[in-house]
Structure formats: structure tokens, C-alpha cells
């Protein structure tokens, strides 16, 4: 659905995107992952035709987006980051305007607007003025706009940014539902989001693609340095003894403190095994100690990137 070849964008001397090449297949939900400033939005803006690339080629559903930008845009429903809207319009009016702007025949406009209102779950605010809506509603109005012309490709820039957890869940479910008959390309800087909904993920750093693959593989790579955090009641030495024998785990820190009559122990373990937490649980239970909390602490995105970029640098140095 999307084919990007050797895409670059310079802002003066700053090279925001450097020679990106990737594809997004039809029917896929593809995540575009990267820290802030990695060039995600710039890339999406080039794909949607808002920005012109410095070099490179973009094909949308077989249409050369640079030669026929309007034809290419017809295939895209785009929701920009921060989701800008006209605050003076009413929701349904706005969607009707957008539907007309996207070239829908007047006979189909009402039907499509109703469907978009329903799909994005904004039908209850259809007659409200956009400027008076909450952030979550506005985000969904933006989503409805992306859906209204029923495009085969949805490009969503940070679709869950600024939403509360409940809203995030709803949006994710919606995207999953839409993916049944659409290709979705979404950018995010939240790792679990990619895990939650994406079939495939592209990781961008400093304008370059650093990794590509399915979320599980990414996770594998990233969880090599997983940490397990626990706290329990009992003697610090007993805990240390129990934990030291667990396979694939190394104690990073352990401490105990008195809380009235009880002693509370908390520890952080470095784990190389994905199932390390289970082993720890069993070991603590077998030792007859009381566990108050046990959780896996996932490696932060920053960790992933630092590792990926370090690898890269190392590879480069090797080449040289």
C-alpha cells in the first residue's frame, strides 16, 4: 500500500529524514516507532503530501504520490499529530465539509458522515461545536475525519497522545476493528501500543530506520535486559538466599527496612530469561517467604534505542 524509496528531507542544514526505504503491505497495521524528533511526523507528512521530500519516491496504492499528489491523497485518511480542527464548526458540519472536500458525491455524504460519526463514537456530540469539546472527543473527531471518505489507507500520527487510559483503550479497539478492511500506518512513541495493535513495526531514530519487524521480535531484542522488581516480608538474608539460586537472574540490589514489627524487603533483579518472573515467584513461595509485589519492569524505549543505536555505531565502526 505504501512504498517509500530512499526518502530524505532536509530543513536547511538539518537532515530530518535520511534515505528511508520501507513498504507497508495491504491490510497491515504497521507501527512507526521512534522517540520524539526522530522524523516520524516529517515522514508521515511527506507520505500524505503535506511536505515535499528533498529526494526519494513515494508510491501510495500504485500511485506516484509526487507526480499525482491529489490522486494519491484520495487513498489516504490522515489524522495529524495534535489533530487540528476548526473550533467554530459543529462536529457533523465539519465532517460534511470534509466529505465534500474529499470529493464525495452529495448523495453519499450523509450516509458516510453518519457512519464515521458512529465508528469514531462521536455521534453523541454531532451537533456540538468543536471548540467546546474535550481533548478525547476532538481526537475522535479527527479520526472520524480520516474515516469519512472511506479511504483504503489510514495514516494516524500519534492517535492516542493526550488521551486518558480509557480513551486510549477505545481508540486502540477502534483501530483494530478498522484494520479488517484497511491498511493502517500509525506512529507512536509508546512501545506497548505497538505491541497491543501492530502487526509490524518500523523503528526510526534520527531520521533513519534502525529496525523493522514484528513486535514480538522487537520485544525479544529489547527484553534481553528485563528487570524484575519485587518486595516481600521477611528477612533480607532469606530473600537473598532464595533468589541467588534462581536460574537466569542476577541480583542487582536488595534492601530491607523495618516497618513497625515487620521487616520489608525490596529487590531489583536483572533477568535474561523471559520467564524469570515465574521462576522467582516459585522460588520465593518454596522458601516460605511472603511476596507482596512482583512485576516485570519493561525496558524503556530509550533503552531500546540506546541499544539499537549503539549496535549500529558498533557495526559502523567494524565496517571501518
Amino acid at each position, binding site marked *: 500500500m505504501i512504498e517509500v524509496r530512499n526518502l530524505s528531507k*532536509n*530543513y*536547511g542544514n538539518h537532515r530530518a529524514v535520511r534515505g528511508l526505504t520501507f513498504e507497508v503491505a495491504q491490510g497491515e497495521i504497521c507501527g512507526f516507532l521512534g522517540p520524539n524528533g526522530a522524523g516520524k511526523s516529517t515522514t508521515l*507528512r511527506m507520505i*500524505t*503530501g*503535506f*511536505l*515535499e521530500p*528533498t529526494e526519494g519516491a513515494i508510491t501510495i496504492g500504485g500511485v506516484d504520490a509526487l507526480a499525482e499528489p*491529489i*490522486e494519491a*491523497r*484520495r487513498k*489516504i485518511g*490522515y489524522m*495529524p499529530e*495534535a489533530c*487540528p*480542527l*476548526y*473550533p*467554530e*464548526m459543529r462536529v457533523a*458540519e465539519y465532517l460534511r*465539509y*470534509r466529505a*465534500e*472536500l*474529499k*470529493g464525495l458525491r452529495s448523495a453519499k455524504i450523509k450516509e458516510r458522515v453518519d457512519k464515521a460519526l458512529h465508528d469514531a463514537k462521536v455521534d453523541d456530540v454531532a451537533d*456540538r*461545536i468543536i471548540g*467546546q469539546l474535550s481533548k478525547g472527543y476532538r481526537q475522535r473527531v479527527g479520526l472520524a*475525519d480520516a474515516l469519512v471518505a472511506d479511504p483504503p489507507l489510514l495514516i494516524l500520527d500519534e492517535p492516542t497522545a493526550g488521551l486518558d487510559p480509557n480513551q486510549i483503550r477505545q481508540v486502540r479497539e477502534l483501530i483494530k476493528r478498522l484494520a479488517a478492511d484497511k491498511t493502517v500506518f500509525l506512529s507512536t512513541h509508546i512501545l506497548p501500543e505497538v505491541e497491543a495493535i501492530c502487526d509490524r513495526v518500523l523503528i526510526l531514530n534520527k531520521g533513519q530506520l534502525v529496525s523493522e519487524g514484528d513486535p514480538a521480535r522487537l520485544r525479544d531484542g529489547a527484553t534481553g535486559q528485563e528487570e524484575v522488581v519485587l518486595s516481600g516480608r521477611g528477612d533480607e538474608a532469606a530473600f537473598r538466599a532464595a533468589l541467588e539460586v534462581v536460574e537466569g537472574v542476577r541480583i542487582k540490589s536488595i534492601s530491607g527496612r523495618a516497618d513497625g514489627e515487620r521487616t520489608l524487603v525490596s529487590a531489583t533483579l536483572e533477568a535474561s530469561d523471559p520467564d524469570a518472573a515465574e521462576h522467582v515467584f516459585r522460588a520465593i513461595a518454596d522458601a516460605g517467604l511472603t511476596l507482596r509485589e512482583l512485576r516485570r519492569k519493561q525496558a524503556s524505549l530509550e533503552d531500546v534505542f540506546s541499544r539499537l543505536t549503539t549496535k549500529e555505531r558498533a557495526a559502523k565502526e567494524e565496517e571501518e
Partner: protein
Amino acid sequence: MRAAWTILKREVYAFFVSSMAYVLLTAWLLYSGVVFYMLASYYASQPLGAGAQDNPLTMFFGQTTLFYLPMLVFVPLVTMRLLAEERSRGTIEVLMTAPVSATSVVLGKYLASVVVWIAMWLPTLLYVWLTSRYGDVDLGTVASSYVGILGMGAYYLAIGTLMSALAKNQIVSGILTFMALAGLFIMGLGQFVFGEEYREVFAYLSIWGHMEAFSRGVIDSRYLVFDLSIAAGTLALAVGAVRARGRELSLASPETRWPLYNIALLLALLVQANYLSYRHYDRWDWTEHSIYTLSDRTKAVLGELDRDVEIWILLSEAEEGFAELRNLLARYTAETERLDVHYVDPDRDPGAYREVAQRFELGAMLVGESQLSDVAAVVASGDRHWEVTRDDLISRSFDPFESEDSVELNVEGERAITGALVELMQGEATHVCVTTGHGELSVTGSQRSLAGFAQEMRRENLELSDVTLRGRDELTVEECDALAVVGPEVAFAPEEIDLVRAYVRGGGNLLLAIDPVVNASQTEFVDLGFERMLADFGVRLDRSVIIEPNPALLPAGGGHPLGPYAVVGWGDHPITQPFTGLGLPIIASEARSVRPASPDQAAVLLRTSEQSYAETDLRSLAQGAGELGADERDIAGPVPIAVAAQAEVTGREAIDEDEDGEPDAQPGGRVVVIGDASMLASEYLQEATVVNRNFASAVVGWLTERDALIAIEARTIESHPVSMSQEDVENLFLRVVVLIPLAFVFLGFAVWWNRRQ
């Protein structure tokens, strides 16, 4: 382009739901209301308005700075949002990633601003309606004023759109637009600063110059082409700016999306289009009375100009009718490229005026600070030139026979200018011989002189000179194009009469102006010898004197029934044609009746009133001073006092064959007999409110076959000027300054109330 329509709709919607719209509209209508009220109350305080064009409406539409200055503020307020707001809100990203072209976006936004512009001006139609309640409103002029406003809007709003496309936010956009428009406006003011050779160019660039034509009912194709081409060019730049997203305007950047050669090409195209339109333009006259439409005669004369002609207009811009004259001359220059018009203001540029005066020996007098000469225009070609007086160009007259609030404006400029052109194109001066030796008025005579008449005629290239008939064998057409006998007191000798008869039969033209002459004892009318001869030409010269008892035709405050009195009964003849619809009188005094012997031999030019009669019995008149009244021997009114006849031609080919086989336009032998010599006296010739001079000029013109002088009507525009009482003015204040703006305050409040949740 459907996208442009969609964007236009949304843009207009967004404007009219914003409270800003109603603040803007209210401010605008309050401002125009105050201006209109001020102009109206100024006019109400004037004793009398003048033409149909001279009313508060015409002033309101572009004749004062008060019209232009708010444009510099309101246009930026309308356009600053267009694209700059999309950019500052970020919605530009949603807009430009929809399948729409930059052209559609710019066009939709721009046209939306045009709609707002129209909405701003629509309420001013109420001013037109209000004005029409107090006097005549020339709807054609109003329509052309709105065309001008639309053209100006097209031009200004396009600049605003471009600035909105370039600017980062609304404030910057508004300030940039204001600066651009103010710059253009100040540049346009050059027309009032620089000399006349640059005036046209600056007037072309300045909306002030445009509105001067539009607000007077003239649609000038040049100005429309200018407005629309600048708008198109500016919008093309705006499209470029939107494509470039306003990001990479740095010309140094290699990836700049702003190719310089495109701009150069656009500029070249604009200059080319404007140059062509400036050279080949048209002006359409939308005024109700077509005051700026040239007669077919003028068009023919202009079409046949075979050499370059220059016209100097030596009038101050403050002069009444100056603007009308300028518009008229613009029509002339639109018709031909051979004509150049220069305006020299004697008050503002005395140096240039002196130069022109010296060059053409105008004999200007320096009185105090100001130059005085009654020559208002000089038409020159090569070493020949022709002078036109101020009165010839334009005069306003108050018709004493019409109601008091009716005013007439004579647009005689065309007649004067075209006549001058014809004269220039023709060869030598026409000679009119004036007889002497019988107590007549003569050119060189010391007592009863034709000097005033001669001076008037000289302006029309007629040379008057005295001639003595006694002792001559022959008077030829080569010698005298026409012969004038004005007011003889002594009878002509039979040899002299024979000489005149032979002259007319040989193709000569005769003007006889003969008062009734009585014998020394005042008992009998005296025959001056012409009666028999005139009978041969089909004219009866009666021994009578006309009595005019109608007090309405006598001077106010009472006059004598023998005269002077006004004569308004025009006959049907090419000479009188210009005067028939005019309603202006000719003044006669102590006249005798002159009648056609039969209707097919001679035509009546002028008749006195129904009530008048010609007294044939001098004795009864002398005795019964108190008892006026026609008896059966008198000639009942209306009494003809001037006739024109064509003598049979003998001794000369009736029709000369020219090279082209066309009949020569000089069959000759024309005779005009007027029963009154005082009609041609200087005192009446110089009177502006009577047509003695025009009539004399037309008579001589017809006699000497110079149709140019008679074929163009002096047009008269009758109008009922706007007149308002103090109460009307107060009413107007309530309506335009209070009610109309208040209506928009309520409208804005209603919209706000409706959208509040």
C-alpha cells in the same frame, strides 16, 4: 474546482458565525454611515446642487479620501484570517492533505473574501434608496460605482490573500496587507503630485483614478483589466506561496520551490496584458443620459483624423464640470491614438500655463495672482490651432421656464472640441463680408459695431470683414463665402440690390438681419430695398413690428412689449435642431415679421409666442399706446421672425463633381433672413443663459455650409438635485448612523445567542 466551492462555503460560514464578523460589519457601517451623513448634510447646506452626478452618493463612492482610507484597514481585516489562521491553528495540514489543489484552496479562500466584501457593501444600497427619496439618483452611475468597488475589491483582496499566504499568523498578515495597500495608495497619489505627463500613468495605477471614472458612470476597460490582471497575478503568487508552504522562501536554498523565472514570466505577462489593454481600451457610458457618449459625428471626425492633434485644457481641477470634461476627453482618446490631451492648471502651474499662453498667443492677463483668459482649451495640430472658451466647454444653466428645483447641465464640450477638430482639419478661414454704408452694424464701425459677433465667429475660424457694395461691378463667392447685412437704417440702392441678387444666384450665401425701420415722422415703415429681391427667394419681409404681450417672456420686473423679450418657438430646420429640446430662449427686441412666401420655398427658424402679433399699422401703435391688441390687418401670433431659404442656382453648376464622383457639399445660394438685428448684438451674445450666440453661430455655420458647427447637439441634462431639509438630514442621521449599524449589532448578538450552549 468543486473543492474551491466547498472551501468558499466553509470560509463564508466561518466568517459569519464569528463575532469578529459583526464587529467588523458594525464598525464599517458606522463609519460609512457617518461619512454619508456628513456628505448629505454638507449638500443640504448648499443652496442648490447641480447635476444628477453632483450628489452625496457620487461623493460617497470614491470622491473623497474618506472612501479610501478605511479600505486600507477593512481589507486586511477581511483577508488576514484566510490562510494565516489555517497555518497558526495547524488546520492547514488537514486542508492540504485532502485531495485538493493549492489553486482550489487559494481560489476558494479568495472568493470567500470577495463574498464578504460584497456583504460589506450591500447595506450601502440603503444609502442609494435613501438618497433617491430626496432627488434624482442616476442608477447607471450607481451601478458603475459598484462595478468599480468590485474591481477594487478584486485587486485589494487578492493582495490580502497573498499576504495571508505568506505570513506566519494573522497579525503579521494584517500588517503586511495594510503596508502593501498603503504603499500602493500613496504611490497612486502621484497623480495629484506629478505633472500631467505622469498623471495618466499614476491615475492608471491608483484606485482613486479608477474610482473617479467609475463613480461618474464610466466603465473603463483599462481599469477593469488592471484590477483583474493584478488580482490574477497576485493569486498566482499566493498559489506558489501555498505550494511552498511558506517554509522555504530563502532564495539561496537550492531546493527552493519558488522559481524566480516563474515570477519574472508572470510579471512580463502582467505588463504585456496591461500595456495592450492600455493601448486598446474602451469606455462604456452607464450614465442615464449618456453624458459621456460621443455623437456619431465626433466618432467620424476622430476616425478620419489624418494628423496628430494635441489638446491643452487650461482649467483648474476645481472648476465646475472639470471632471465631466476629463471623462469626455478620455472618450476621445479612447477613440483614436492621434489625440493627445494635456491638462494645465493655471492656478497650480502658472509657469506651464504661461508657456502655453505664449505659444498660442492667448493674451492672458495677470490679475493679482491668477491668470485670466477665457480660453479654456486649445486644440492644435502642426502650426494651426483653435481656441475654445470656457463657456463653450461647459455651462450650467437655470431654466427660467421650468420649476425652480430643476437644474440643467449643458455638456457642450463635445460640440466645441469636435468643431475645433473639424476646423483644424479643414483649410483656410471662411470669409464673411459685412456691408457698410447704410448705417449697418459693421466690423470696424465705431458706433454700432459687430465686434463682439466678429470675435465669437473668429473662434470658429470665420473672418468677418467690411465690404462696400457701392461702385462694384461684381461680388464673387471666392471673395465672400457669405454676405451679411445687419441692421441697415438707410435703403440700399437698386444697383446694390442687383449686386446682392446676382451674388446669391451665383451661389453666394446671404444673412439679412433687418430691424423695422420707420421714417422720420414715425408714421410709416420704410422699405430698405430687399422686399422684391427676397420675394424672388420665397421670403416675405413684412412691414411690421412685433408686439409681445406675454409677461412671462418679458424680463422680470416688467418690460416693454416691443422688447427685449424671449423667443422660444423653434422651427424645424438643421440650424434650430440643437435648440429645440434645450428650453433656452433667444432674446429679440423690436423685431419685424419675416415669413416664407410658401412653405416649400423657405423654412421658419423662429417664431414668437401665441399671444404675440405683428403690428402693421405704425400710426395706431404710436397713438394708442395703452390699447395693445391685434386687429384684422395685423399678423396673428405665433409670428415667424427668422426664415431660411435656398435660392435657385444659376450661373454655376448646381452640383460639382468631385474626383470621387460624390456631389460637392456646396450647392450654395443659402439665405437666412432675421427680422431683428439686435439679436446679434454683443450684449446678448455674451449672455450665457440665452442662446443668441449659439444661434448666430449655427446660422453662419449653415450659411457657410459648415455642418460641423451645427450637427452636434449641446446636450442638456435635466435633473432634480438632491435637496434635503434639516429634518430630512436628522432623519438620515438616525437611519444611517444609528439604525443600520445597530441592525448588525443585533444580528451578531442573535448569532452568538443561537450558538451558545
